[in-house]
């Protein structure tokens, strides 16, 4: 569904992503692991069209999408819940969700999807008219995911959805990701919480300083010594 080939992305003269290649198959949960500065968020921002590629290509459903403006990429069916959630804090829950559906024209579908978000996260439905800036970290993360879902994406990219959340909240978010997958949404997940991510990922890629070091199925990576040492806190 999504194919990244030899992608190089730079900030100024510094290459943040140095030629990575990976694929995401339809219906899968794929996770990118790596420490800060490994190039995970840069990769997602490039796929979303917020950053230009220096070289390489991004193919989505058989068509090149690198070089297309960000708003057109949303129309093609790729949504992102960015790092740090980036909610429109002065706007209500409902206005945030409406913005998530900005590119859509089917107002009945938007309404139905909004209800779906409220069913998934009842707390958002209860507080739909409150400004999102007042919410707890977990609630904000739910809204960020819900907002990304509102474009009815084929591919949903989540950048560190568990950041700053309690273990219970993290579990809730991970459960949600699994539910989304069973609804047929393909998911590209960037996480620092490697055990949570790998336990639900079909495939994982391990990034270090802008390069993919190795990859395997989620289960295999969970048992991999290198991963254990670097990301799971085992020695």
């Amino acid at each position, binding site marked *: 569904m999504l194919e990244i080939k030899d992608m190089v992305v730079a900030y100024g003269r510094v290459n943040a992503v140095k030629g990575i290649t990976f694929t995401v198959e339809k219906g899968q949960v794929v996770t990118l692991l790596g420490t800060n500065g490994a190039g995970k968020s840069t990769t997602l921002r490039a796929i979303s069209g917020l950053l230009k590629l220096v070289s390489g290509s991004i193919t989505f459903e058989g068509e090149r999408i690198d070089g297309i403006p960000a708003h057109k990429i949303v129309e093609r069916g790729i949504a992102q819940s960015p790092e740090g959630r980036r909610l*429109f804090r002065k706007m209500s829950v409902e206005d945030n969700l409406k913005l998530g559906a900005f590119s859509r024209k089917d107002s009945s579908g938007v309404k139905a999807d909004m209800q779906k978000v409220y069913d998934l996260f009842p707390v958002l439905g209860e507080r739909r008219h409150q400004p999102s800036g007042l919410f707890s970290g977990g609630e904000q993360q739910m809204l960020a995911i819900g907002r990304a879902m509102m474009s009815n994406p084929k591919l949903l990219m989540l950048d560190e959805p568990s950041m700053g959340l309690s273990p219970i909240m993290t579990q809730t978010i991970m459960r949600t990701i699994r539910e989304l997958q069973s609804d047929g949404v393909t998911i590209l997940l960037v996480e620092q919480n490697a055990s949570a991510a790998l336990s639900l990922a079909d495939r994982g890629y391990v990034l270090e300083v802008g390069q993919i070091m190795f990859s395997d199925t989620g289960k295999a990576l969970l048992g991999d010594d290198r991963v254990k040492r670097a990301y799971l806190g085992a020695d």
Partner: protein
Amino acid sequence: MDLFWQQLINGLSLGALYALIAVGYTVVYGIVQLINFAHGEIFMVGAFGAFATWVVLGSPKQLSWQAAIFGVLPAMILGGMIASVAVALLTERLAYRPLRDAPRLAPLITAIGISVFLQEFVRLFFGDIPGMPDSKRAIPFPTITGISGEAWHLGNVTIQLSSVFTIGALAICTVFLWFYVNRTKTGRAMIATSQDPSTARLMGINVDRVIMSAFAVGAALAAVAGVAHGLRYGNIDFRMGFLAGLKAFTAAVLGGIGNINGAVVGGLVLGVVESMATTFIPGQFGSPAWKDVWAFVLLILVLVFRPQGLLGSKGVDRA
């Protein structure tokens, strides 16, 4: 007391003119954090566009008030808007957009350059358009029967109908703008872009188009101000945008740059302060020559004691 009311009316109508221009500074700033110093010239272009429309209509004179107010005047406003919006979009596309990611000083200096360019362009070439008068000196603005030179008298207070036009135009534009920002999809996109442009793009918002609509809205209101200026002072010239633009910028900062309500309030406050100062400050300091001084003294006081402006700055918030 009559004098107070008289000066209040004068101040409000002058302030309404400032406010109509100030909105353009504030909307653009709220979205791209650019002080568009060429906006005063967009106002001037609007006035010239309205004048040119009148010439194209055959320079109609001695009309009935119905024909003037409901025929010629709307046509002039529309013509002015077309001119100002077209020029504003061109400057955005050709000058500002290529500098979107440049250090902030670059677009600022560019704006000053565009300002000089537009003044000189109109001065040198407007007269070369067939049928248009020489623009190196002031051009008498068309009189609109029923407005130009007409006034209402309430006791000892005189209300020029050009003032009524300006204040009424501001009121109508403010209502439209409120509706546009708060009730349309483009408006929601504007608010989102002003709060967080890169996340707005992730929502599927075409940020380039949002920026263009900000320039267009500001230019359209500036054209209305251009017509109001012509009716009020009876003439237009290529330099008219400089001081008016500076005052409107002051008004925008006064109200809180980026805040649409602030621009309206700031404009009205600035107009009233100017007009009151020339009446109630004794001695030579209250002479008309000092009115600009008081306007900028007010600006300095606000910047020192309330730098965020009267209503607070930050993004294009709820208008």
